[in-house]
């Protein structure tokens, strides 16, 4: 009965304990990093994967051979020296994967940043101002939201003659912002009406400072979530564009790797080591970023964490016989008095 030990702690909680502030605005008390991460399994796993991938991108290339070195035999299956085999040109897949991680992350981050900057511009400014500016910006946002992104990207990139990694990232970023802008606008609108914004005004703060110091920090969780989301979308988008042959030329990304693997008939030639890893890396990174988003969602809307946690703890309590009521949802049915007696005995 491990959980009984935890409840030996003094349980006479002051009933007049201050209610906690509304969720969106609360911040966890400053505890150590370990303390803060405890119980945040998803966050830990997500961060772990992301950090691993970023490290792989940063250090990987120093430990692998030149990703453009064709001196190896072609289409080698995984083996010592080529842990992920080689491509049809004799490039080392692991080396390409590391270099591709750089490329993809760079596309993701640049596109994500651009998307965030644009969505801040269109979202927060629209949300904070009123009248024509708001109407105009919102209209643009809504229109952009409706115009399908990938086709637009395809059309735009097909007109471009040279597509560097950076240009592709810019295109992706420039089409990825409207969703976030809508969310940010709503949020900024509600923040604008918050009393602490009015209070700052009455204190004599200027608008830019109010935006930066009072409003922006409160948007941080949402901004982060949107940024991560934009990164995922950009990396997926880049992969899609690359598959269509509209990806960045001259750079290695997971998308271009997939494109080359596809072009080189990797799957039909049985070279799974060439085709599978880039796709998995994309999925893994996306999954990790989503996991982080999960935890951010739970910060933004604590119900998401507290409600399931509550249900869990109650089921635990019931299993321990701490509940005298009868439940029809699968919990053991016991007579009120039995349970009660047991509870009293404890």
């Amino acid at each position, binding site marked *: 009965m491990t959980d009984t030990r935890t409840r030996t702690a003094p349980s006479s909680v002051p009933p007049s304990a201050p209610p906690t502030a509304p969720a969106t605005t609360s911040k966890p008390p400053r505890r150590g990093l370990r303390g803060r991460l405890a119980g945040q399994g998803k966050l830990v796993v997500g961060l772990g994967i992301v950090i691993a991938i970023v490290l792989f991108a940063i250090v990987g290339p120093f430990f692998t051979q030149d990703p453009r070195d*064709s001196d190896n035999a072609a289409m080698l299956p995984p083996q010592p020296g080529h842990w992920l085999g080689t491509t049809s040109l004799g490039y080392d897949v692991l080396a390409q994967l590391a270099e591709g991680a750089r490329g993809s992350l760079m596309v993701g981050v640049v596109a994500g940043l651009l998307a965030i900057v644009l969505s801040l511009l269109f979202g927060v400014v629209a949300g904070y101002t009123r009248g024509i500016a708001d109407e105009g910006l919102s209209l643009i946002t809504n229109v952009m939201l409706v115009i399908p992104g990938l086709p637009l990207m395809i059309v735009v990139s097909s007109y471009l003659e040279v597509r560097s990694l950076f240009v592709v990232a810019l295109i992706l970023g420039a089409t990825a912002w409207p969703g976030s802008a809508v969310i940010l606008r709503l949020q900024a609108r509600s923040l604008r009406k918050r009393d602490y914004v009015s209070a700052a005004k009455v204190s004599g703060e200027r608008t830019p400072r109010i935006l930066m110091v009072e409003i922006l920090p409160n948007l941080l969780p949402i901004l982060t979530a949107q940024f991560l989301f934009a990164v995922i979308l950009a990396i997926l988008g880049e992969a899609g564009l690359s598959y269509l042959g509209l990806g960045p030329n001259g750079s290695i990304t997971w998308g271009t790797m997939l494109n080359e693997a596809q072009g080189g008939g990797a799957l039909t030639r049985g070279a799974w080591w060439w085709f599978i890893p880039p796709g998995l890396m994309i999925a893994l990174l996306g999954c990790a970023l989503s996991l982080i988003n999960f935890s951010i969602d739970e910060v933004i809307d604590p119900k998401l964490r507290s409600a399931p946690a509550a249900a869990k703890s109650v089921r635990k309590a019931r299993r321990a016989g701490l509940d005298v009521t009868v439940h029809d949802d699968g919990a053991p049915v016991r007579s009120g008095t039995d349970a009660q007696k047991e509870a009293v005995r404890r």
Partner: protein
Amino acid sequence: AACGGGADDPETTDTSESQSTEGGEGVATDRELVIWAGSQTPITANFNPYAVGVLHLANGGIYETLFAYNKAADTEPISMLGTGFEWNEDGTELTVTIREGVTWNDGEPFTTDDVVYSFTNDAAQPAYLAGAEAVDDTTVVLSFDTPQYTNEFALLGSTYMVPEHVFSANEDAEDAEAELTGIVAWPNAEAPVGTGPYLVDSTSDAAYTAVANPEYWGGEPQVSNLRYIGIDSNQSAEDLLATGQIDWATMFVPEPDRLVDAGLGYLNTQVDPTVLYTCADADMGCSGEQTDVAVRQALSVAIDRGAINEKAFVGLAKEISPTFALLGRDDKWIADGMPAAIEQSADAAQAGEILEAAGYEKDADGFYGKDGETVELTLTSVDGWTDYNNAAKLIEEQAAEAGIKVVASTVSWNEFADSRTSGEFELIMGGVVGTSTADPYQIYRDWFTSGYTTEVGTPLEPGFWNFSRYSNEEVDAAVAEASATNDDAVKADAYATVQEHIVNDVPYIPLLVNASQTFYNQNDYTGWPTEEDLYLFPPAWQGPSSGVILGNLAGTE
């Protein structure tokens, strides 16, 4: 039966009959032959050989030429609707004998008037054709102002015979949507009238089918049903081949063995060279170090063609002759003293010697340069042409080993087309369209003479292929000489001159001859061109030869 076609043999006997190649063991079959000739979906019904979107079956399967020429081997043309032809002394008249007893599939007889119409209608008449005249019921004479020996193939091997009574009625066809008038606007979608072995049966946006023409002059084809399908990616086509769902396709497959193991017949015919275009002539306005012949020569020896073929072309391409004569087919045209195949492995040392002899020195980074300027060449290839992109990457690496800095980059197809016609490029990885007959003449004329190029900045006209801006009076003269003769010896002499120059000047750095892989169902059908009997160029998309092959097929059981 031997083919004439030489001026020294004016009275031609009958050329080889297509029926003659028909395998004896074949039987008639109802099994539907499924073909992928490269069509993509959606398929739009169009069987007008003059239209841009004409479907593959029309070229050869429905409309036939007078003769069928073999692009793949040095064999005699096969007699189709023509039974013989003859050049006059000076090459200004071509007399063709027409097969008798042929009827259009609507029952009308095929006549010399149809032949004349097929050569002289607005859509077909070439500029050099001065006139066409039916001399009697079986003879047509084509006349020219200048010798046209070299256009024999264009006239006899690629001009489709169309029924005057049908086509002339549609000369004013109008495609309102396309704002297009004339015969080319006519889709000819309803029961096209031709002489070929097949009749169109149905068309949908995904496939079209054909049935054997019972009245075919060569006898009713043994394979009674055809289905041409549209497939949108090589991957799908390969998968379909592997799973036995298509019977004939010509496409790039990196590991053909897998399909051969699955029981498919396989032919790899290499005819079209792949080269590096170099903007070669500074006098024509080219800029960049590649205008120096030493740089081109050095680069050429620095390239490891074996590795490129092995890695970028999966070992499927063929060695190229620096003379651009197709090895195997055109061997007789390679002048004495010319190397047959170009060196396959790289020779970095030799490249260095060439450059050093020309006054280049290595800089601190190990790259050659002159006067403090490092040689740096940009090599572009069309984005998405994976084999070319890969080859370019390999060349970048190989050149670097020889101390030549080449930067590989990919460009959009537009930019590629643009820069090669305008001449604003340094190096482009590109193809050279091979010749359709066993004679390198067309390549020499179209790709190496100054008549087929313009100054840098002025776009080349359509039909001009000299992207490298190579201009050499001696080459021009030699090519002119070759065009005016039908005497092989004279021609060979002229070619020797051409070859001497182009091998030394390397305006196009030869890489290899591209593969074209044809897969066919040999279990259920017989009569395919094979390694042993390469009677025609086998690709499913090639007209008119594909039509001839179709007429040749039969079931195995």
